[in-house]
């Protein structure tokens, strides 16, 4: 409906708008926008800046970087970091393996399953992490209570192995599902998947080859996004791990906070910086490709006037 308006009003609107309207509109909003931006910058960058200041400006010692150098020597740093990174890698891999084939299949061959998949992936939103943890710990108690002596008991023990707690992996994959689903679904929506697959199949490629060499490269942006969001989720996850009694990175930071505030804040700063760097890398890697596929739609929606002005 609205798309029809520009051609109709085209000849008449451009004449009044450059003269009357913009004069009235330009001045105030720009000031106001600047103010909003300023407040936002202060609020969002303030804590970061203060954290950095807090870590380098120790009350009785003056400027020092000792809290940063102290990180690597702190007890439990390497083990918790390794655990978190392993969990993150496994979570990303498992999420992709579960979702990518399912979503491609839903798009191509089983549109009826679409609602089911959407519901399945949205279910975790209804159960807050704390509640999920309560449920998980209650399930884990079934092991010794109800299954002692059966082979299932071994399974219960195996998934709680503190070296690599599979139970955390399962919980994280579940928690990552809603976001991962949305990201991947948006990526797939921007593709003309059916044509791509048909073309590839007509050239004689089998399904595995089509998926690996045609579909996935086109999904690169969405895959990277998903991987990044999942990584951020696992890096920052505290609830499930702390209540179940494991010590990945976030739990370790908190446990450190009691004894050494300076170091724990500096670790937080570092992990924030790490996340930002990853984000920048992601943005750089995703830009080249997504520009061609996703961008035009969004831009057309965002600035319909540009499109309208270009036409005549």
């Amino acid at each position, binding site marked *: 409906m609205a798309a029809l308006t520009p051609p109709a009003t085209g000849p008449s609107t451009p004449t009044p708008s450059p003269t009357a309207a913009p004069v009235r509109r330009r001045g105030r909003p720009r000031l106001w926008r600047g103010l909003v931006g300023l407040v936002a910058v202060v609020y969002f960058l303030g804590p970061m800046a203060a954290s950095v200041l807090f870590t380098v400006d120790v009350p009785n010692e003056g400027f020092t970087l000792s809290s940063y150098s102290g990180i690597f020597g702190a007890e439990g740093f390497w083990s918790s970091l390794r655990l978190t990174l392993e969990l993150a890698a496994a979570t990303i891999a498992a999420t*992709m393996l579960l979702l990518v084939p399912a979503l491609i299949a*839903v798009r191509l061959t089983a549109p009826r399953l679409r609602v089911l998949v959407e519901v399945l992936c949205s279910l975790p939103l209804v159960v807050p992490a704390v509640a999920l943890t309560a449920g998980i710990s209650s399930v884990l108690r079934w092991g010794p209570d109800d299954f002692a002596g059966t082979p299932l008991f071994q399974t219960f023990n195996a998934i709680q192995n503190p070296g690599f707690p599979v139970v955390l992996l399962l919980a994280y994959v579940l928690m990552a599902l809603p976001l991962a689903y949305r990201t991947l679904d948006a990526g797939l929506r921007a593709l003309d998947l059916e044509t791509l697959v048909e073309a590839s199949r007509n050239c004689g490629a089998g399904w595995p080859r089509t998926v690996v060499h045609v579909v996935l490269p086109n999904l690169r942006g969405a895959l990277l996004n998903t991987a990044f969001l999942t990584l951020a989720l696992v890096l920052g996850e505290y609830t499930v791990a702390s209540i179940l009694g494991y010590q990945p990175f976030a739990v370790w930071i908190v446990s450190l*906070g009691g004894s050494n505030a300076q170091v724990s804040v500096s*670790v937080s700063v570092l992990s924030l910086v790490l996340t930002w760097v990853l984000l920048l890398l992601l943005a750089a890697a995703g830009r080249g490709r997504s520009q061609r596929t996703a961008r035009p739609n969004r831009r057309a929606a*965002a600035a319909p*006037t540009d499109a309208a002005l270009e036409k005549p």
Partner: protein
Amino acid sequence: MTTARAATPPPAAGPSPEGAGGGPAAASAPAPAPASPVRAGAVRRRPRAAGWLAVAPLIVFVAVVFGLPAFAIVTGAFKTAPGAPEGVHWTTGNVSQSVQGAYLTALWGSVKLSALTAALGVLLGLPLAHAVVTSRFRALREAVLAASGVLANFGGVPLAFAFVATLGNSGELTRGLDLTRHGWSLYSFSGLTVVYLYFLVPLMVLTITPALEGLRVQWREAAQNSGATTRQYWTHVALPILAPSLAGGFVLLFGSAFAAYATAAAIVGSSVPLITLQIANALSGNVLAGQGNVALALSLDMIVIAGLVMAVYLPLQRRSARWLR
């Protein structure tokens, strides 16, 4: 990582050698019927089973990893604790206990905090998102949206420590401006509000941006040409269109604040009564032993509220999507 595989040469489906998995392709190509609709049907038939096969792992995963804990919560909430003297039996005691006394206070505290932060998040997120969307600098816009993505997902521990370092008892701002004397405390309801907004406002920006991008410039021009002031444009055109998105954003923010645990746990310990903190306490037996089933009942309360939130949010989102085409 999967991305490594994805980085292989671009698609183009160029001269792909027919080797590899030519099986299924060959099978579907010589479909018997010449008429095209029938052939389409034949092509479609084969992968339907494959479709189920591809979705099956997801179904099994959610059924086990989501289903078992959900089952445990629902049944456990209505059972006595395993170690109870008169044996395990069905009861509504846990649930009624979960909405009484300290637990009720915590539930109410969570609802209050979530409602307040969600409302503030909407009020502050809308102007920010509007400023960003209407900005002429595309780079700025993309940077803010990307940053919002990080901040919205980056609640939790680092955020808590950043605020402790800024506004905590010995934080930089607290010491610099001597805020403690003015009655400021981070470890309180208002302190948590300030912290929660840090991830709720970006979440609002992310949620509302598509709706704001859907506001056509023509609508504003039409309003202006009809003699409307900016204020009239907002109250009669833009806000009614945005209303479902705003309401949806509020609900989403509420749910997000309601479920937050890590930030609160890392900052206030348990000095502010929140339901998530109570569940964790009851689970770890910090307060009283044998409260595990009350924790399950509390979880059930939370799930009911979160379920209501989603039940309100999804139709709102669908309604707002109508304008965004």
